[in-house]
């Protein structure tokens, strides 16, 4: 994707999304869904960086989200830390956990990472259930909303703009990383690890960098989630949610910068379209979407947009 197209798409999306809440002035719940889309898009962007650009599979992404969410919530509730500061600490701590898990497992071949992260995912939820400070099996209730200076992000509308700002920042950071020296190294590792190694790329180092960054982004998304939903339960962040994260990244389009947003919108909005009575059918549709996009659309939903653009001779 050329630089101009990224900018133009970004501007179009921004222009479309800024007045969006005003369309639903009367229905804050719909804006709430948009907030979820943005939160999961941030989290999925982390996974996209790891899987789409560096080619490493992680099955514990939701665990990093849980770590970020719980650390931030506990810091704010039990230690009265400023919530902005708490989110920064939570993000850093999720990165540290990523370092601890990634360091032994990334030096081995790819599937060990999948197993190690899967074990991490189940162990994290298990640990959260057993600790008392995390509320154990009852979950953590009434987490205070975000507060910057004296402004409380309480209403869905204010959260919407904050999250939108966060998402644009994260997407820009990832975009710049991908087009930098490190990003080229990551893509080289994904496409041909041996070749990358032979031209002097430190494969283990770059894999670790991608893994730590991805877990930091997941931690940030989890911290924002905690203060937005104000309720955390360990069962939310089990292996199933990690798999759904992977599915979001795949359906949206791996290795495309806007894929995570598309995948997250698909995942959040599909059950609303199908309706609450057939809630579980959306999981089936989602699984089918994953298989179809692997078989026919390697870049997922992004590819549909790309093909449409090509047909309309936009580029």
């Amino acid at each position, binding site marked *: 994707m050329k630089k101009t197209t990224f900018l133009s798409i970004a501007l179009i999306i921004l222009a479309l999304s800024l007045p969006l809440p005003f369309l639903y002035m009367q229905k804050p719940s719909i804006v709430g869904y948009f907030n979820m889309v943005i939160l999961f898009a941030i989290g999925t962007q982390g996974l996209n960086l790891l899987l789409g650009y560096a080619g490493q599979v992680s099955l514990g992404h939701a665990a990093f989200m849980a770590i970020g969410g719980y650390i931030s919530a506990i810091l704010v509730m039990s230690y009265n830390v400023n919530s902005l500061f708490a989110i920064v600490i939570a993000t850093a701590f999720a990165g540290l956990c990523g370092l601890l898990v990634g360091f032994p497992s990334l030096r*081995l071949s790819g599937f060990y990472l999948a*197993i190690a992260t899967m*074990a991490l995912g189940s162990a994290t939820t298990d*640990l959260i259930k057993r600790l008392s400070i995390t509320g154990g099996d009852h979950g953590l209730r009434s987490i205070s909303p975000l507060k910057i200076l004296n402004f409380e992000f309480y209403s869905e509308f204010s959260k919407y703009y904050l999250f939108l700002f966060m998402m644009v920042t994260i997407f820009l950071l990832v975009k710049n990383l991908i087009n930098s020296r490190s990003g080229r190294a990551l893509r080289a590792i994904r496409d041909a690890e041996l070749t990358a190694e032979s031209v002097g790329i430190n494969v283990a180092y770059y894999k670790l960098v991608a893994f730590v960054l991805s877990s930091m982004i997941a931690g940030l998304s989890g911290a924002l989630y905690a203060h937005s939903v104000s309720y955390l339960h360990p069962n939310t962040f089990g292996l199933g949610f990690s798999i759904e994260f992977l599915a979001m990244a*795949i359906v949206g389009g791996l290795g495309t910068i806007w894929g995570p947003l598309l995948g997250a919108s698909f995942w959040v909005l599909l059950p609303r379209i199908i309706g609450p009575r057939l809630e579980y059918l959306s999981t*089936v*549709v*989602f*699984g089918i979407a994953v298989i179809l996009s692997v*078989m026919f659309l390697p870049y997922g939903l992004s590819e549909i947009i790309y093909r449409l653009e090509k047909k309309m001779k936009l580029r």
Partner: protein
Amino acid sequence: MFDTLLNLTARGLSTGAIYSLIAMGIVLIFQTTSVMNFAQGNAGMFITYLAFFLLALKVPFPLVIILALLFGALFGGLTERFLMRRVRERSHVGLLMITLGLALIFEGLAASIFGTFPLNFPPILTGPPVHVGPIILSKQDIIVNLLSLALFTLLFLVLYKTKIGIGARSIAEDEYGARVLGIPVFNIYIFIWALGFALPGLAGILVVPRFSLEPHFMVPIQIKAFTAAVFGGMNSVQGAIVGGLLLGVLENIVAFYYPILKESFSLILVVIVLLIFPTGLFGKRSQRRF
């Protein structure tokens, strides 16, 4: 003290046998097609649901087990024939994602067809526990042990004595070499995938009386099976069996003395194995494939 340990070992063996059954499917598929199959747990769960409703229709238990194995084989064969084969040449990560997609489909189908309400699945044999010397075992545990022993023997005979098994082992060594020698690689793939989905179905039926039947009950068992496979060495079928049995026994003993470690034990084991001997107990150091 010694009696307690003996009892824990005996009960752990029957848990371990179930881990071994699933781990064996994982290793067989990984060896021949180098894909990690994440759909196994949920496929087993779905087959267990089917078995539950067959039982409710008063179908006798042995027939239900055979039918469940056939269902699993059918799922596996269809997966290989219509999904895996079309993607294999194009992308490798894609294969893993298809298994994840299948896992989602099985989970959603089970929840939307059968509901999420936990059901009680009857054990194969009920009745008072049996005393064998100092060991006290329930009849279900004995059946589990005997059935898995029979299956392990059968599978080893298939792998080492029949043409299809020898073909499968040659694919594990070198796929292109096997193709050049005229081994029907694609048929063997179908056989291996059918086996890989039938085994967890049986394991699900054997293990479900300890829990209750609901759409997520196989997830922790699948994680343990992966642990067992890594523990025994991802490229060795013997390793999967020994790894599963050892994991079951160790876990049972650890859970008895330190209950807080019950679920985390397999994670600790995975980390230790990954750090100290990444090829597992029986694994050979494999060369990188190109």
